[in-house]
């Protein structure tokens, strides 16, 4: 059973308080009507499903009711980090040991400038 650090409650809580909500960072297309059926299907259903480092969306359902992201290894189940909505992960498949903090900040800045992409 997972022990999950809620970035809003700022403490470790039991998995029973949380619900997993699938892959993180899946932004709804800004203009759905401009999407092809294929693009819309991709958004709805197609997922990375990686073996290894995975970014996933969870909600602290029995707690603060906030959604946040977890970077977790899907084989060892080790949680590498949890971060708030709108933030970017430090640990990625490309950087399993974690990116330097400055790089994360710069990326977060870049993402926040993109309109409509909050996920």
């Amino acid at each position, binding site marked *: 059973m997972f022990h999950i650090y809620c970035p809003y409650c700022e403490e470790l809580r039991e998995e029973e308080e949380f619900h997993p909500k699938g892959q993180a960072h899946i932004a709804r297309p800004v203009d759905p009507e401009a999407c092809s059926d294929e693009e819309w299907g991709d958004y709805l259903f197609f997922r990375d499903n990686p073996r290894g480092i995975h970014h996933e969306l969870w909600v602290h359902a029995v707690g603060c009711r906030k*959604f946040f992201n977890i970077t977790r290894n899907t084989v060892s189940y080790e949680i590498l980090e949890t971060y708030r909505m709108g933030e970017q992960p430090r640990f990625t498949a490309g950087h399993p040991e974690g990116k330097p903090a400055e790089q994360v900040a710069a990326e977060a800045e870049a993402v926040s400038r993109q309109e409509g992409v909050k996920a």
Partner: protein
Amino acid sequence: MSQSLKQPNRLREGGRIDRSHTLHFTFNGKRYLGHAGDTLASALLANGVDIVNRSFKYSRPRGIVAAGPEEPNALVQLGSTEAAQVPNVRATQQALFDGLTAQSTNGWPNVQRDVMSLVGKLGGRFMPPGFYYKTFMAPASLWMTYEKYIRKGAGLGRSPMVPDPDVYDHLNQHCDVLVVGAGPAGLAAALTAARSGARVILCDEQEEMGGSLLDSRELLDNQPADQWVAQVLEELARLDNVTLLARTTANGYHDHHFVTLHERRTEHLGETAPVVDDYRPSRSRMHHVRAGQVLLATGAHERPLVYANNDVPGNLLAGAVSTYIRRYGVVPGNRLVLSTSNDHAYRAALDWFDAGREVVAIADARRAPDGDLVAQARERGIRIIEGAAVLEAKGSTRVSGVRVATIDAAAFKVTGQAETLACDTIASSGGYSPVIHLASHTGARPSWNDEILGFVPGLVKGVHAAGSARGIHDLAAGLADGVAMAARALETLGMTSRAIELPQIDTRREGAACGLYQVPHEKPTLRAPKQFVDPQNDVTAAGVELATREGFESIEHIKRYTAMGFGTDQGKLGNINGMAIAARCLNKSIPEVGTTVFRPNYTPVTFGAIVGRHCRERFDPERYTALHQWHVENGAEFEDVGQWKRPWYFPTIVNGKKETMHEAVARECRAVREKVGILDASTLGKIDIQGPDAREFLGRIYTNKWEKLAVGRARYGLMCKDDGMVTDDGVTTCLADNHFLMTTTTGGAAAILEWLELWHQTEWPELNVTFTSVTDHWATMTITGPEARKLLAEISDIDLDRERFKFMDWRAGKVAGVPARVFRISFTGELTYEINVQANYAMHVWKTLFTHGETYGLTPYGTETMHVLRAEKGFIIVGQDTDGSVTPEDLGMQWCVGYDKPYSWVGKRALSRSDTRRDGRKQLVGLRPKDPAVVLEEGAQIVLDPDHPVPVPMVGHVTSSYYSPTLDSGFALAVVKGGHQRMGETVYLPMADGKTHAAEIVSPIFVDPKGERQHV
């Protein structure tokens, strides 16, 4: 009943039992005596009971082999009454209590004379591994018949046939350091962590803490080892940062250091928990431990040697022999032969000798054994046969002798002439396997260590192994390792560890062990007498060899083909030996053959302990509305809707007879259509939505438009997922310009609140809006029917004028003196007021309505009548008339879809996919049975050609179907392919009873199609 009052194998003194406290127990119908401090196994051995069970496949007589959780044979059925039955109790782990009643799980008519053994003896050779797969195939139809007989031989113990009188519970625990195992390393670690101020839990599976120190020959600070144990435990017990859990097995290690500890609270006291002061404590308790760091001081299990007939009663593990002598004062025989590959096992011979019984010989597989224990044996004049091992045990129901010969272990050959020695007990030791089970649960792979000839645990972050559990078998080194590992754990936690003084121990020199698993025999393995690897499943060395010959080369294949390790001991005794045999057959090393994966549980755990108090009425919460008591007192039958108990219907007594549901519902329906009915609608989900962007949010999440909904008005809304399928519906009310009250389906309440939050928090955080559940705050009472206005007018100050308080308006005011919000919305098609008051005042309002309602024929109704009434109006129930594959258009609810809303609301895009646009989708229609007396079955499938041969093409199914008292006929809602284009067509419903009903496709609105009645 026969009884035995002597304990022929009990020593006059020594051991940790209390000879002044005698206990009676019954085994296989015979009464015996034992003492406080005994296990069932030690008491059986004390009484000279050899055969404790029959084996699973071959029905061979079996005796006690071990003294702990690795025991494969001594599985008994416990319990003197039906309710107290416990199957498969391991006698080595069951403390003796007065009145204990047990019997062997196998053996008919009894374990001494078992007729199945004949089958085993004669048929054994026809039952190699996998024999099932190779036969019983023809004819195919007969397999079930064969299987019936095979099943008769299945199983060990039996399930009780009546419910459990005992209760179980859980305790959630948190600690900095969890120490599993209270042997030398565990005690040293726990003391270190405790003195350093950490929150410590120390658990141990045995009746007493101390582990190997309880039967140690060594002195600590020149005192017997158990005195040091007592000192440490006394100190730990005094510290309030320490929780000591004896009789507590760490049975499962789950993710992120969540460990379940199973504490047997009363199993040593009786077969059911003793009742004290009318209170029955929990029989066992599961501690759910979330630990910061975990220290595994789980010790090691001794490996027996695999030689011919090594399963005859009287074959024991060397360490078990020592344990029985030193801890329980029991010598399980008279004449011992020890077969060993290491020094440590010499303890068995020394203890045996010191207990005054004969040690016939020690067969030591090493050429020139040389260590302090060996020297001690020599001093006692014990014969040591060097370079030799026991090849074969003699005897059938008890060992009568052994054949010993010199061997070449590496070449797997017998090198000398076998010598036969008379004896009644064989102790064997092939070395020690660290107990890696818990570490293995975490998914970490163990690795083979050639130094210790065993697997050492793989460790994930935060887990530490100490002492024997990682192959440090020397006592002094094990104690020091406990301290060192505790220090490491504390350091990880950022705590400073305080050193403890370790006791002085005389160094003991031990010679190196040699690797010996299966002992060679003069005959090849397939022809030799059976050499058991996993006695519980009757897995032999020949079986393992045969598996490899048949191409099963992966250790997992071998295990599965032979069933090795699948017993209730999970291969604690036999797995490594089996791997060694496989390695020999495949010409590989043990690590090349593979590791073995252990799964929870470490030892079996009663379902009840895992369930805890979450059973019966606490299996799942029952949710009640504020009016529940009234419903109960007025005879309601209840329906489970999610976790809610909702009144289903209110049967009354008519002429001394309770109405059937059909009668009650007909009466309730008529009351609503003709007079006035009342429904407790409090279970509907209610979400308070506030904020300047609330309206925009609603427009995005609902299919229909919200920008023009005025304060004081309400609107029905439909919600889709982004795949375009309907997921919920309900009425949302505009309370103020930036303030709405959304209602959801009863079952959908929690999920929809989370759904709204999901969209708000992840996609539209820029919208300023908040969501708060107010489901429980408001009680909702729906009064509906032509007389509703008159009734409400009697007790409300609200202006109910039909022009000023229109359909789909809401007004605030007082009802029965209580502030209320009254919504004029309708789920029945009748004039309806939904009265919402704060739940604490609901009962008063409800009762007041009844005080005034009698004049108007006010009738309470339940969910069944609600369903009939709404279906007559063609109103859908999400989840009943929809199933996750239905769009708003399929429901014919285009009126509820805002196609031209500027924002592409959730679900919109999906409606234009090729499949959602195609013709022939299933669409919601009404069905009128041709025979009005017929009420179609809900779930009945609809066909166009009832005479079509199977498979019959189906075009849809009935989603809702009722008898309508208003129409005096059956009617139904259904989804039918292209249904909206099929109005007036006849379809057929072929039923299981052979009847086929015909029905006409009609509009889903059966009553008041113009919707006039709700506007009156």
